[in-house]
């Protein structure tokens, strides 16, 4: 493809490549997803899921909600790093991270429409009948508000695409306020997702049940967010390379190194916090059971090991090692969320009464991820995500000296 960064892909070119393997596979998944959607809303949850009275939450909560939200944490971590902590060299990573987070959250809400019994009542907790004693209420409220924040944070890309300079500048001016609001909301709901399980100490295995669950979920979401940025950066780099400008590409490796260092620190902190939790509840004796083995695998293989890999990768500036660490961390977060909400939940029940998803539940989750991927590609190939819009360059010097609270990066700080 051409080396210049056209905001839109020529239509003809897309037509010609309609029957690529990628399109065929995604097309099939979407088709199956649509059929299952019809089934869900005609036959009920019983028609497509293995949910039961003992196991009211399945993979749509474990994966779509818990993992979805944790892995979309790249949005708040990246924008906080860039705009609050002043690490402006990560500026190029902000837009893709915001877009992924926005899509991630939108898909979480979309997925919930499949899972809850009466989806059209999803606004009820916020607008009609709030139940503030519920942790889920807090989750719902924060996710709802954060979705709006992410949308606003993303609008500059769309407005640049639509060439609405006035509105775009207005939105950019709100960056700092939005970022701080976003971090506050993320802190709350990332931790609250862990707090959801605080109410059921009798159902969750003691190795995972801890009064620190909210803290664990919050800290690990930071590691998840940083790792997802690295991981997605790698993927996008491979498949959307032609949409990237020099500014993004130049920042790409720097982002991986910087975020890798951050993730290493966060993972070490997380590791020790988990040990403190284990010690405080005096749960050491559980380590010798089957669940203990699972716990050890999670903690050593998917927290300690990636922390080590990150440290080594950053020290030797080895991007390959850093990417492996990112993949491991992401898998570790998924394993942790699965453990808390699925594998170690209802552990007191006999095996026959435990939950295992039906293929249809898995297919719906896959369908939702695919939809997200397609929308991401659609937006990233058209709007200025991996490149700066030629009319809205932030890297070129500005006339007037930006005033104190201008959150935008300064041209001097790009280290030419």
């Amino acid at each position, binding site marked *: 493809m051409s080396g210049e960064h056209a905001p839109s892909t020529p239509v003809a070119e897309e037509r010609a490549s309609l029957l690529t393997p990628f399109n065929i596979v995604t097309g099939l998944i979407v088709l199956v997803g649509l059929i299952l959607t019809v089934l*869900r*809303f005609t*036959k*009920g*949850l*019983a028609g497509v*899921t293995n*949910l*039961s*009275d*003992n196991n*009211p*939450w399945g993979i749509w909560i474990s994966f779509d909600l818990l993992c979805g939200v944790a892995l979309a944490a790249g949005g708040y971590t990246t924008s*906080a790093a860039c*705009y*609050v*902590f*002043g690490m402006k060299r990560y500026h190029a990573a902000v837009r893709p991270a915001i877009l992924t987070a926005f899509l991630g959250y939108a898909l979480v809400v979309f997925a919930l429409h499949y899972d*809850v*019994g*009466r*989806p059209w*009542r*999803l606004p*009820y*907790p916020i607008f*009609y*009948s*709030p*139940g*503030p*004693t*519920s*942790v*889920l*209420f*807090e989750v*719902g409220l924060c996710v709802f508000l954060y979705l709006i924040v992410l949308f606003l944070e993303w609008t500059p890309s769309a407005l640049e695409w639509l060439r609405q300079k006035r509105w775009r500048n207005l939105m950019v001016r709100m960056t*700092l306020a939005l970022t*701080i*609001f976003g*971090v*506050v909301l993320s*802190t*709350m709901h990332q*931790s*609250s997702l862990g*707090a*959801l*399980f*605080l*109410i*059921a*100490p*009798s159902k969750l295995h003691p190795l995972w049940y801890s009064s620190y669950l*909210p803290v664990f979920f919050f800290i690990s979401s930071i590691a998840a967010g940083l790792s997802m940025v690295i991981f997605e950066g790698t993927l996008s780099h491979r498949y959307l390379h032609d949409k990237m400008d020099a500014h993004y590409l130049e920042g790409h490796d720097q982002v991986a190194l910087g975020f890798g260092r951050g993730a290493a620190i966060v993972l070490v902190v997380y590791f020790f916090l988990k040990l403190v939790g284990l010690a405080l509840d005096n749960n050491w004796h559980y380590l010798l059971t089957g669940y203990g083995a699972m716990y050890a695998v999670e903690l050593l293989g998917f927290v300690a090991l990636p922390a080590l890999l990150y440290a080594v990768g950053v020290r030797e500036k080895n991007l390959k090692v850093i990417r492996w660490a990112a993949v491991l961390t992401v898998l570790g977060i998924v394993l942790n969320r699965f453990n808390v909400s699925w594998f170690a939940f209802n552990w007191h029940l006999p095996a026959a009464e435990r939950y295992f998803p039906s293929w249809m539940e898995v297919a719906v989750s896959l369908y939702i991820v695919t939809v997200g991927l397609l929308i991401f590609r659609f937006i990233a190939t058209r709007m200025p995500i991996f490149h700066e819009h030629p009319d809205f360059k932030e890297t070129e010097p500005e006339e007037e000296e930006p005033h*104190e609270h201008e959150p935008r990066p*300064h041209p*001097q*700080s790009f280290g030419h």
Partner: protein
Amino acid sequence: MQRRHFLGLLGATAATAVLGKPAQAGPKHFTGYPDSFGVLFDATRCIGCRRCEAGCNRVNGLPAPARPFDDLSVLDTPRRTDARTFTVVNRYSTARGPVYRKNQCQHCLEPACASSCFVAAYAKTPQGAVIWEEGVCVGCRYCMIACPFDIPTFEYWDPLAPRIMKCHLCYPHITAGTLRVPGCVGACPTEALVYGRRVDLLREARHRFHLFPGRYLDHIYGEHEMGGTNWLYISGVPFREIGLREDLGVTPAPEFTSGALAAVPIIAAAWPALLLGIYAISQAKDKAARQEKRQALREALAKAQEECQAELAKVKAKAEADKKAAIEREVKKALEEAAKAQAAKEEGE
């Protein structure tokens, strides 16, 4: 006023009918609503006839079960409540032979289900019942996650309006006046179930401990479990042997999440301040860095200028010197030439 009336009426009828003596006012310091009603289940009296199941089914108009209520082979497999069954009786083999226990909502004093519902679909009534209202339920099923007794159930087969189904202590029937005691209690042939004020039930249980030494364990399950429940159990065998968990503790469920919820306003208040502080520091650092850069530039420029000036001066001086030398040379040359000319002239003369 209305509540008083209701309680007065019921207290008088139910308690006298069941206990055979007038109900007394409850003690002053009491967790949960005073004068709330509940049921006492006596496992030593239950014969596993399933009449309570049938009674519950009838008064609540639930669908007919797959196997009729007089089919006692159902007891061979343990069952739980489901969306068509608010209560089940299970048989447990124990050291004292088979023991039966009825299961249904325990009507906790501080219910996990109600505290976990994000649309407040549940209510703990002052009369004791924990009821669920269809009007606002989203169907998220968090209440099912929260309930330590695995009680709420869900109509999974309903595509658009699935309900949470569970025992409501016959609250709708009793408030409507169609029933004076819950359907299951009324159907029990052995008085294994007794309906009354919770305080009276506790007293009655202790009375039975006293009356029949050795028949019961000295524990009323539900007096303190999960902060206390309105449904109470007494038994001659350990409660865990009849399917009641003994590891639940006495902490009411809402307390498990109250700490996390209390942290919310703290985060909301402290985080922005903290983040703005960090922002200010990073800005100041940036500014300082920029200023430093500018200062360095200025200094470099000044130095360059100075050097330049010095160079210029040097060049000038050299030029001056050169000029002087050249003039001198020229003068010398001119003088020499003049001298030569003079000499030639003198020779020629």
